[in-house]
């Protein structure tokens, strides 16, 4: 029993006790379902009946399915709009709240963060009301300024997807303002002071000092936003069901509808939906690598 007294053994036991529960939960609730999804992706299975192994058929179907390319285009539109707009607004607001001493700073922080504590359904209902074609707030506002105000924002193919962009930005900005504010507060004041002595403008201060020193946080923020935009579909599910004419159908919503029969089709396609899940996984890993390539990964020490 001498080994029981050894520091090495005790350390191993301690680590086991600390790590095992979390690791077990990770295996049970993350790794195992994901491994099952790989298996399901090779099946013709409705989730209830007999599982039929069909090899690569589902993967071949991915490249022939016109709904996939359409949904990915919609994801791409959201990616190239929501992410830069969210990052830009969040950075500007964070800079204002950190470097300007408004009396209402703490109120603004709560205000910006507020959408993060609301439930998805509440947010969807608020924005449905804003965009409503009959009683909507946006149409009401446009009528006040004599700019029409008769448009059915979520019911028109040309505006339904674009209408989702402000919603996403509104939801995400508050969270990233808080993240960027904390990161900005970590930049030593002496850097700004010496730059000020050299005659730097406020804009230069932001672009030459703040942004480069925040690049690591912005990189992480970008990755999180990519994940959210690609995986998110809840607002479309509640507000538009992917319509009209499939104009707001994103890839995750299509996958969800195939798996859980949300298309009023009377059939479920768990196998094919799992294949789409695999494709989303590969896509996200690829986008993460792209982000890593474009952002400097050098850590900053002040």
């Amino acid at each position: 029993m001498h080994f029981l007294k050894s520091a090495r053994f005790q350390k191993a036991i301690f680590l086991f006790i600390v790590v095992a529960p979390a690791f077990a939960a990770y295996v049970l609730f993350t790794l195992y379902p994901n491994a099952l999804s790989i298996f399901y992706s090779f099946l013709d299975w409705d989730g209830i009946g007999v599982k039929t192994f069909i090899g690569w058929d589902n993967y071949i179907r991915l490249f022939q399915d016109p709904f996939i390319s359409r949904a990915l285009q919609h994801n791409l539109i959201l990616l190239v709009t929501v992410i830069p707009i969210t990052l830009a607004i969040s950075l500007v607001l964070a800079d204002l709240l950190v470097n300007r001493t408004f009396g209402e700073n703490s109120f603004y922080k709560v205000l910006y963060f507020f959408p993060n504590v609301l439930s998805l359904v509440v947010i969807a209902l608020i924005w449905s009301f804003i965009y409503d074609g009959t009683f909507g707030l946006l149409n009401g506002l446009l009528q006040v300024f004599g700019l029409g105000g008769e448009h059915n924002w979520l019911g028109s193919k040309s505006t339904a997807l674009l209408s989702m962009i402000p919603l996403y930005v509104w939801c995400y900005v508050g969270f990233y303002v808080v993240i960027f504010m904390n990161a900005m507060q970590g930049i030593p004041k002496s850097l700004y002071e010496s730059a000020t002595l050299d005659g730097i403008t406020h804009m230069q201060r932001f672009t030459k000092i703040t942004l480069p020193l925040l690049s690591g946080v912005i990189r992480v923020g970008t990755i999180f936003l990519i994940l959210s935009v690609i995986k998110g579909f809840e607002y479309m599910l509640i507000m538009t069901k992917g319509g009209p004419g499939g104009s707001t159908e994103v890839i995750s919503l299509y996958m969800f509808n195939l798996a859980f029969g949300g298309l009023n089709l009377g059939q479920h396609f768990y196998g094919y939906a799992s294949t789409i899940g695999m494709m989303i996984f590969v896509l996200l890993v690829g986008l993460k690598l792209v982000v890593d390539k474009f952002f400097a990964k050098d850590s900053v020490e002040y």
Partner: protein
Amino acid sequence: MNKKITWSSLALILCMVLFAAGCSNAANTKGSASNTNPGSTTPATGEQSSEEADNYENGLPRNEKVTLKVGLLESGYGREWFDYAVQLFTEKYPNVTFDITASPKIGDLVSTKAAAGNDEDMFDLFYSDTWTEYVNANKLEPVTGIFEMSPYDAPGQKLNDLIVPGFNDPEKYYKDNAWVFPIANYIGGMFFDQKLFDENGWNKSPKTYDEFIQLCEAIKSKGIDPIVYAGLYNYAQFAFDTKIFEIAEENENNQFRNDFEYFNGPQNTSPENIEVYKRLYDMGKKGYISKKSVGMNHTQSQMLVLQHKAAMVPSGDWIENEMKESAPDDFQWGYMAVPFTNNPDGPIYMNNGLSYSFEIWAAKPELNKKWAKQFLLSLMSNEVQQELVEKGGALPLRKDYLDVPTRADNMKPLQKSIATYMKENQVVLELKNRKIELTHPDYAASLKVIVDNMALVLTGQEQPEPFLQDAEKLLQNAITNDKEAQNKE
């Protein structure tokens, strides 16, 4: 210190092992208990009495407690009628209790439970609209036998003979059995405020397509949207999806029904289907179908009719009950079907179908399934039917329901309006059933093309032909693949 850590670590590991063993043991015990006495069936008394003495008139034992787990759909019919039915049943059979989970999305809960594969956790009785998948997977109990039984208020008469003809078949027959027990069959069509129509002198029962278009024009001239509908859920189908049969009859296409039922020839691009979509597109283009419909759910669209911002809304006969909390006191729902031919004597095909039903999960204890069948049979008593008709707004399924004059008098205005319409017009109740089932994914994809684009066509924003052709290509591919698969078998 080291010693303390060692023994405390060992003690902790020992605790975890014992806890795990305890869980495992508990699970085993539970498993064995359910094997010997499956489900929720347990003896009510310590001693078993003789079966003959302790059985009800239906042959089921009095002394065994049974809990029926019910997945109840919260629909436009409400649940007062169901609670009443449960109360009646439990008064008569006190050994039976009910564990009810009610939700408007109960079908999603059922499919999740089904996918989980835990039969004990599954409902005994539930509503689901994707029941063919469950039948294919041998998960449902046939309910055919219930139609051979006699309700307690009609001894000696088979239920099958008591149901309104057409309401029992052929919709739910599949693979030589009935799997879905009907609770309510809906009538679909156009719903409107009779008072508004009377005030404006509008035609409440157009006999021809031209008369219907004139009605839309008259409504539009008053600055009111003639038709609004729930584009999010494709509610237009309740008014228009049977119109192909009307056009086929007008064209004297006697082969049409057979081609429809067996997927022979073009379906989406059949002359009849294209004609219907062209007319709908024209109606949208002329502003008869409100563009606001596209992003609306059923409640929003029906609210516009209550507020007289729109005149007509396609839906089912549950609408009166569904909107009773919001409807003004003087609002009086009326019904019409949309005629699609110009022959005033030609039949008008009305949309109808199963709007509420129950299925029984096969992998449940036999006694639970027997009680579930008895409960379903009890729902067909006129006592429960009356509650469903008067509180839920459903049409009665029993053909002897109206034999009692007071029951007819107590029907809601909308039910009377539907009955009057059916009496004054030559109508056909059309179920739109297919005789063969397609399972290839391209079939679902072809339906998706239709569902995705329907609202845009109906509001005059997109021409129908391109998407009908896309849907047809997918459909024909599905038909070919399924036929090849069947030949291989």
